[in-house]
């Protein structure tokens, strides 16, 4: 398989499309946690009950159609290899928990992978809608329609006072987690983010690294999401998150402008050095690769380097993860082997581009 083909198969189709504010916001995700009445929750379920739940959902949903949803593919975790499951995790289409520990776990995907519904994860259903750029309202509208369609076919566990009943008390109510993935290199380098983050958390929002809970930030990518799900409507949650994200976008953009105004030469130097390292390394760890990809992407956004596609950061951040590297190598790899393959993959990828020195803003 050629590298172009490999990348094309590895990247979710939606990631290739442009989105609003995608110089700063990489993607938007809406997740709804839902459970069905009269089935034990996955944390206490037996193999038989989990199978019965899967069968029930499959029969009810695979035989009805919905215009906007299109064809859905049902992938049972039992039928996938370890690497295939890890690839789904690295593409954020399923969680590590579903891939490794679930009973009768499955993931349901549509063609462009904007929908991924997990079955038998922490909750019976986790409906996830992904979109490029900053699209909170659109993403929620899409998830809401999908939710209505599902609810038309199965009976949810719902309580008048507590809302959608979930396995964990942190999700009860709306069951909604809205997340926005942001690239904030200027706020990080000027150490403004450290000051902003405590304020963000006081507003009931959480900031995490790109691989979710407990992960550190790589490549200056941060995931910002709502923490509370009870006592606020979905629209309120989205409005509050939108307000904070808009402010962060504005701050990041103005700081970039300032940096360019006062430090253009240093910035251009950093960008080209990062490009040099990425284009020439023979061994590279993921953290180092993430940081240089972030700088390269900043250089693309500021026009300091030309001829490289803007979505190279999103794309390579997915591709340089362990399972993708092993798929690319067509063999299992040790940590050292992965560092070598990572460097090769990045070099090969950059050869596909037609690099030119950029002038930057004047």
């Amino acid at each position, binding site marked *: 398989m050629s590298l172009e083909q490999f990348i094309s198969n590895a990247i979710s189709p939606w990631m290739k499309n442009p989105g609003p504010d995608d110089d700063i916001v990489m993607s938007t995700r809406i997740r709804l946690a839902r*459970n069905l*009445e009269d*089935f*034990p*929750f996955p*944390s*206490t379920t037996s193999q038989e009950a989990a199978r019965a739940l899967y069968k029930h959902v499959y029969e009810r949903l695979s035989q009805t159609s919905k215009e906007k949803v299109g064809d859905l593919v049902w992938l049972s975790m039992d039928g996938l290899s370890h690497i295939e499951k890890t690839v789904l995790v690295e593409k954020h289409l399923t969680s*590590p928990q579903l891939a490794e520990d679930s009973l009768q776990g499955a993931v349901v995907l549509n063609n462009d992978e904007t929908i991924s519904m997990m079955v038998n994860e*922490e909750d019976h259903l986790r409906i996830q809608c992904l979109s490029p750029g900053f699209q909170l309202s659109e993403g929620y509208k899409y998830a*809401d329609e999908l*939710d*209505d369609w599902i*609810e*038309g076919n199965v*009976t*949810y*566990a*719902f*309580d*008048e*006072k*507590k*809302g*959608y*009943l*979930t*396995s*964990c*008390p*942190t999700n*009860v*109510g*709306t069951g*909604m987690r809205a997340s926005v993935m942001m690239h904030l290199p200027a706020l990080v380098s000027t150490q403004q983010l450290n000051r902003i983050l405590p304020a963000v958390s006081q507003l*009931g929002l959480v900031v995490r690294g790109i691989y979710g*809970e*407990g992960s550190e930030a790589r490549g200056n990518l941060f995931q910002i999401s709502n923490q*509370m*799900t*009870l*006592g*606020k*409507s*979905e629209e309120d949650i989205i409005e509050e998150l939108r307000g904070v994200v808009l402010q962060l976008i504005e701050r990041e953009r103005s700081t970039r402008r300032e940096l360019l105004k006062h430090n253009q030469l240093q910035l251009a130097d950093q960008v080209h050095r990062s490009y040099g390292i990425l284009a020439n390394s023979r061994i590279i760890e993921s953290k180092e690769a993430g940081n240089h990809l972030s700088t390269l992407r900043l250089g693309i956004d500021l026009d300091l380097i030309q001829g490289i596609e803007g979505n190279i950061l999103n794309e390579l951040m997915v591709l340089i993860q362990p399972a993708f590297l092993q798929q690319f190598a067509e063999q299992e790899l*040790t*940590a050292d082997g992965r560092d070598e393959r990572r460097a090769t993959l990045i070099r090969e990828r950059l050869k596909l581009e037609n690099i030119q020195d950029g002038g930057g803003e004047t």
Partner: protein
Amino acid sequence: MQCQECNQRQATLHFTKIVNAKKTEMHLCEVCAKEKGDEFPGSNSYSIHDLLSGLLNVDPSAGSGAGYSKREEKEYTLQCPKCKLSYKDFINKSRFGCSYCYQAFSAKLDPILKRVHGGNHTHTGKIPKRQGGRLILQREISSLKTKMQEHIDQEEFELAAEVRDQIRELQETREKEEGQ
């Protein structure tokens, strides 16, 4: 540096643990770290659920009486009649066993939910369309009642009367549905 477990492979993971000012360092290769499973702090470190479990264990409603009160004991023996999950297990795992647990533990739940959701314990968001017809109607009626009161306060009596008629209509629909 060599892995301190197998003494063969190179250590690629380095951990420092500090307990009561005593520092312990661990240097492991990936294989040995994986074998150590739960002790491996890299992948499954302190999560929101550990934090939550800790939060649930602090119960302000339990009172500050010395020792283990009878009421507390009774609450700890609470059990969901449907899935048989005990309240104690719920606290330890911070997961409900089924949707009926919410009713079974309802007496204890509001303070817990308030703590997790910034003081809130009542849902004000989406209502499922097919299941929630009656509820949706009820919410619409109460929002119209607020609107009617606003018109009355502004002395816009004609508008208030219009809203009143809308409320009557919805109330009739509700009565019809309940009569069926």
